[in-house]
């Protein structure tokens, strides 16, 4: 058992991911795209929510901005979807910079409230300015015949996010973010430029979701305000990170895998209680497992492989300071 090499696991996972579109059904590819999009969202959220410890309820706002920027470029000017996604990523960053630059980031509760309303207000604008966005009717894009390019792009982005999180976790920058989460005043007094790092984490966490929004619109072939700014997208992402383990490298991956199976079963059989079920999962995780599956596995020795990955597992995430 001890012989399992994390590198070998990564290589095998990579090969499986590469081969998947050629050996499996369209359904599996489609499901994988959704899973990978959620994975990217979860890793982005993990940077600001998990590492810096700032509760971010507005990520779906950036997702929606990206969806609209990408769709409009694609629809009006025929910009190819991958270029539109890059433009969407810039739009996400451009929106995040002024929001992060204000004094809202001074305190977690201001940030939480400010971001909470962002998505619903953007949705109101998307509905209200119907001459640009098509209002409630939405925008219909040309359907994509082959999902495989989308799959590979999204898989690459997800892998980059994972690698970046791994690098972050093993760097001084990651430690500084964790210090902000654990005690912001103490971090400040140690000379950590807390405000700058928080804004940086916030802006960085807005880029990939915006790109994913644009790709998601292409994948669906359609976008309207309730789809672009769906609250269940937000809740599901947060639930994934929380369930897997906030501020860990593998937490979002574990959480996304675990929750997307649950999602698939729930959506297929009980769509009317989907939100409540995810809500209950979040609530139970907050009450009984605030450090997530990853740290639980760590404690019980389930996850021997890749132990170095958990080196920086935050000690006090979600626990009362004692």
């Amino acid at each position, binding site marked *: 058992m001890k012989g399992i090499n994390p590198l070998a696991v990564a290589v095998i996972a990579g090969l499986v991911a590469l081969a998947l579109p050629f050996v499996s059904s369209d359904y599996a590819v489609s499901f994988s795209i959704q899973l990978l999009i959620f994975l990217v969202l979860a890793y982005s959220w993990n940077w600001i929510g998990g590492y810096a410890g700032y509760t971010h309820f507005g990520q779906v706002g950036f997702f929606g901005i990206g969806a609209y920027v990408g769709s409009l470029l694609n629809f009006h000017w025929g910009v190819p979807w991958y270029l539109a996604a890059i433009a969407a990523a810039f739009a996400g960053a451009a929106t995040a910079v002024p929001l992060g630059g204000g004094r809202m980031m001074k305190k977690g509760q201001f940030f939480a409230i400010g971001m909470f309303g962002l998505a619903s207000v953007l949705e109101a604008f998307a509905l209200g300015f119907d001459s640009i966005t098509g209002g409630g009717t939405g925008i219909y894009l040309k359907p994509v015949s082959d999902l495989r390019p989308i799959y590979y792009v999204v898989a690459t982005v997800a892998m980059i996010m994972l690698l970046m999180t791994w690098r972050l976790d093993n760097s001084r920058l990651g430690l500084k973010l964790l210090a902000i989460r654990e005690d912001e005043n103490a971090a400040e007094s140690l000379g950590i430029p807390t405000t700058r790092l928080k804004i940086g984490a916030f802006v960085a966490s807005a880029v990939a979701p915006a790109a994913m929004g644009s790709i998601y619109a292409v994948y669906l072939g359609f976008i309207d305000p309730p789809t672009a700014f769906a609250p269940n997208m937000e809740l599901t992402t947060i639930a994934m990170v929380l369930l897997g383990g906030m501020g860990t490298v593998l937490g979002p991956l574990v959480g996304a895998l675990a929750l997307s199976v649950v999602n698939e079963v729930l959506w297929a059989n009980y769509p009317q209680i989907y939100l409540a079920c995810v809500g209950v999962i979040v609530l139970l995780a907050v009450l009984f497992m605030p450090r997530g599956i990853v740290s639980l596995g760590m404690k019980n020795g389930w996850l021997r492989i890749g132990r170095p990955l958990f080196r920086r597992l935050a000690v006090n995430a979600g626990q*009362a300071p004692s």
Partner: protein
Amino acid sequence: MPVADLLIGGILLGGVYALMACGLNLIFGVMRVINFAHGDILAIAALSTVSIAVGLKLPFWVAIVAVPIGCAALGALIQAVILRRIEGAPMIMSLLATYALSTILVNIAILIWGGGYSGLPGVLSGSLRVLGVNVSISRLVSFASAISVSLVVWWVLEFTRFGRAVRSVSAAPELASISGIAIERVRLATFALGTAMAGFAGVLVAPAFAIDPQLGSRFIIKAFAVIIVGGMGSYPGAMLAALLLGVIEVVGSYFAGAVIGSAFLFLLMLAVLLVRPRGLLGAGVRV
């Protein structure tokens, strides 16, 4: 005379916001918990009011008495079962917990009442002429009741023994505990009182607005805007800001349409957050 019309409409709307925001502010001030489920409690209260008055055909005053009590019980349950367990944990945990609670409540409300709109026609119908403007009685009554309840709670907080206990737990929990105040009981009572205020606001909303299970998410953002603009934890600030934002919303909707009009409030809130997070009358937030 559209100016008087808009002004009165806005102030009447602001009354309900005041009641709701004061409950939210009270809970935040004492427990440092931002209750994202506050709006959904209001929505469930409004839907229950319709069920009591239309479904069970009971008189309206039954709802006025029963619904806030039910909401207080719900609040006490939430505090005892969930929030009490994560009191020492970082703020992110209570934020996530109330956020999850909010989605659970919305979903339950949709399961019970369905997704459609309902209302309470025939209760407090008719209108009065005030300053040459026709004002519907239901809105006038809901404004008057909302403002008086907010003022009564303010008086309780300022001038009674219980109010002093609440304020001391808010200012310095450790010192309050040393002075013999049962802080757990005070927190439980505060949370129940705050949710009861949301419940009463829900009862008042029922005759005046079209209501549905998603009502909570629309109201909570306005309540957030009110407490941010007024200053988090400041009771008079919230009441003042509620009236101000009510007027801004009504005027904005008149000129730019309802969807954009309510988005104005949020833009104002964002502006305050970006420039002066402690709000108009807030003394800054102690953490």
